[in-house]
């Protein structure tokens, strides 16, 4: 079909099939993109809220764990102070009780019993007498704090020898009438809290650590960091805690730099008493893992969607253009005179109508051509007849002519005879 090829080679020719397929693809891609984009956005929003609330719960939980460490020590000291009637026992018995308390709890390094006038009644220690450095801590500053007969936790200080964080805890010792008779003082080695904090599970790779009001690290799974006496005030959440006065937990959960230098979602929960905060951190990658998975999933679905759109686009555009191509080819053949060309289009739509109209047109064309031929034959017949008639007439005329001519000749002959005869007579 030379015409078709010529048409295809035309510079401005653009296949309808391709145009339709592209249009379909573009349309579906746009729809898919908008749908996936919106889904991702809302997914992200929800996930972020989930992460924030989860983090808060985890931080609170971790805070409770740490707090219970301190509360445990308090309740041990309080029980000892009340059950053993330390306010009235003699010094040896008092020391005995302190020994037992020291034996029960490894985190107590030194225990001192003071009377109501803050004089030392009994003392036990894991260190030798000469090395017991708690005395320097038992100063007017501490006494001022414990004067009102309440529980008290000192700020954290670092032991010179071991570089381990320590603190002083005190509980009032009261007699059966509730009168203040003295104070039980304990020096607590906070390294026994490290394991506890190190074991707190924050997701897969998250960490928890404890800082005091100055932002000094006092408990963390990596003990080297604690022993180094690091101050973490440069970390956003720690700074938040240090600069905040109250016990409010912040709600927002943006990314910040974590204790290990990575990007994390962090949150903290203040303990109240003691005045520390537990910070929990979850690496960003882990926190947004679900979102990342969602993105990958959406992308895959989108790819699949685009793939389907391509298939469907090609199929549909073919379906639309095939009858048109059929009609076009038919038209070309008809144009070349093949009026018997079959138009194989059975669509029940506008194109179907067009095909029917085409067929109708061809039928009409055929009919009018037949009529024309008939007329022609008729005409020819007439002409024949007329010719024959004419011929007959001509023949008749010729016959007549012949007759006439014969007579003429006889006349001539007769005339001649007459003349001869005439001459003869003369």
């Amino acid at each position, binding site marked *: 079909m030379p015409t078709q090829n010529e048409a295809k080679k035309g510079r401005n020719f653009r296949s309808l099939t391709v145009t339709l397929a592209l249009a379909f693809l573009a349309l579906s891609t746009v729809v898919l993109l908008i749908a996936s984009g919106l889904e991702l956005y809302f997914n992200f929003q929800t996930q972020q809220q989930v992460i924030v609330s989860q983090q808060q719960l985890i931080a609170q939980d971790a805070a409770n764990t740490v707090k219970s460490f301190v509360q445990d020590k308090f309740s041990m000291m309080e029980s000892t102070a009340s059950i053993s009637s330390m306010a009235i026992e003699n010094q040896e018995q008092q020391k*005995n009780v302190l020994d*037992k308390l*020291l034996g029960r709890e490894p985190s107590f390094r030194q225990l001192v019993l003071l009377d109501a006038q803050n004089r030392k009644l009994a003392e036990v220690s894991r260190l*030798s*007498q000469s*090395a017991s450095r708690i005395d320097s801590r038992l100063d007017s500053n501490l006494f001022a704090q414990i004067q009102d007969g309440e529980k008290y936790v000192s700020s954290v200080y670092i032991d010179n020898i071991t*570089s381990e964080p320590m603190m002083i805890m005190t509980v009032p010792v009261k007699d059966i009438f509730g009168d203040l008779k003295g104070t039980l003082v304990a020096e607590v080695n906070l390294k026994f809290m490290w394991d506890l904090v190190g074991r707190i599970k924050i997701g897969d790779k998250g960490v928890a650590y404890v800082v005091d009001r100055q932002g000094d690290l006092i408990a963390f799974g990596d*003990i080297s960091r604690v022993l*180094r006496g690091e101050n973490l005030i440069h970390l956003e959440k720690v700074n938040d805690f240090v600069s905040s006065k109250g016990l409010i937990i912040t709600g927002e959960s943006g990314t910040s730099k974590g204790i290990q230098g990575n990007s994390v979602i962090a949150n903290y929960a203040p303990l109240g008493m003691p005045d520390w905060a537990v910070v929990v951190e979850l690496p960003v990658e882990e926190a947004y893992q679900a979102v990342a998975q969602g993105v990958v999933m959406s992308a895959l679905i989108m790819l699949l969607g685009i793939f389907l759109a391509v298939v469907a686009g090609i199929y549909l555009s073919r379906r639309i253009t095939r009858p048109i191509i059929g009609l076009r080819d038919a038209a070309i053949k008809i144009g070349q005179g093949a009026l018997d060309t079959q138009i194989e289009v059975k669509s029940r739509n506008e194109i179907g109508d067009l095909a029917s109209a085409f067929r109708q047109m061809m039928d009409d064309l055929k009919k009018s051509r037949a009529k024309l031929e008939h007329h022609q034959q008729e005409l020819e017949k007439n002409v024949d007849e007329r010719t024959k008639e004419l011929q007959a007439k001509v023949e008749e005329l010729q016959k007549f002519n012949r007759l006439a001519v014969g007579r003429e000749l006889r006349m001539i002959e007769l005339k001649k005879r007459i003349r001869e005869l005439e001459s003869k007579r003369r």
Partner: protein
Amino acid sequence: MQKMLLATLLIAVLFLSGCTTQTGKVYHVGILSGLDALSGIADSFKAKMTELGYIEGKNIVYDIQKTNFEPDKEQQILKKFVDDKVDLIFTFPTEPAVAAKAATQGTGIPVVFSFATIEDNNLVDSVRQPGGNITGVREPGPDIFVKRLEILHELAPQAKRVYITYNPNAPPVPPALDVLRKAAPLMNVTLVENPVATVEEIETDLQARNKSADIGMDAILMMGEPLSVSPPALEAMTKFATEHKIPIGGVGSYTIRGSIVFSYEIVLDDMGKLAAPLTDKILKGTPAGTIPVVTPEAKLLINYKLAKELNLTVSEGLLARADEIIR
């Protein structure tokens, strides 16, 4: 369409292959155990390392060498470690640690020590910043020697003359003597000191005392330095103590716990266990000199059975404080 499929597949394959990258680094760690009595430290160290993900033969190889208070052999082993370019040297107690620090000078090989005294020997700059390329688990410091004397005094207050024998050049000894000599008079206790250079000298001294009318001591406080805790020295001292029915104690919970009335010292297991996380950090790239030295806790063992046999009155308080009691 096929191209599209292929592209999708390709992306998927790339995505998956990105997840399975692994470094095949195998660490070589040289372990030098400087005292047979302490060789258990290497085992607990390895056990903790396994917990931290270092599987022997897979991603870590140990070269375990043992000496028993033999400085020359230590030097040879350390030299071999350095020649072998091990990734790290783990060693204990103090003497090989000091030797390792010297041997690795300038080689970049980090050293992790355990059971080492850090007083008076320049092993580390400070607990927080050890400096150089070394860190580790220390002995608790000289105060523990005084505490042992106090416990002995509490167990046997009538024992006024306390015998101590030691190698004066052993690293923990000089700082310990400093504080012991100050503390003893406060308890009304006289230290009967016997500085020695060899185990034989201990044996000779004890034999001489055996022969004299007065043995010149009421109790023996063990110093916990290599020479005096070597098996023959221990044997000589415990035998002497048993014969004369005097209390002996201080250290020895992992060797002669049946013959001592008490010990106050670090659990051997802890010495290895605490060193493993430090090693892990160093292998992961933290400079050893910036990792603070770890201080373990001492545990109190009371041999109540022996104390009763010696007619010592063990106070309820002391028993309450004990981490372990032999009945």
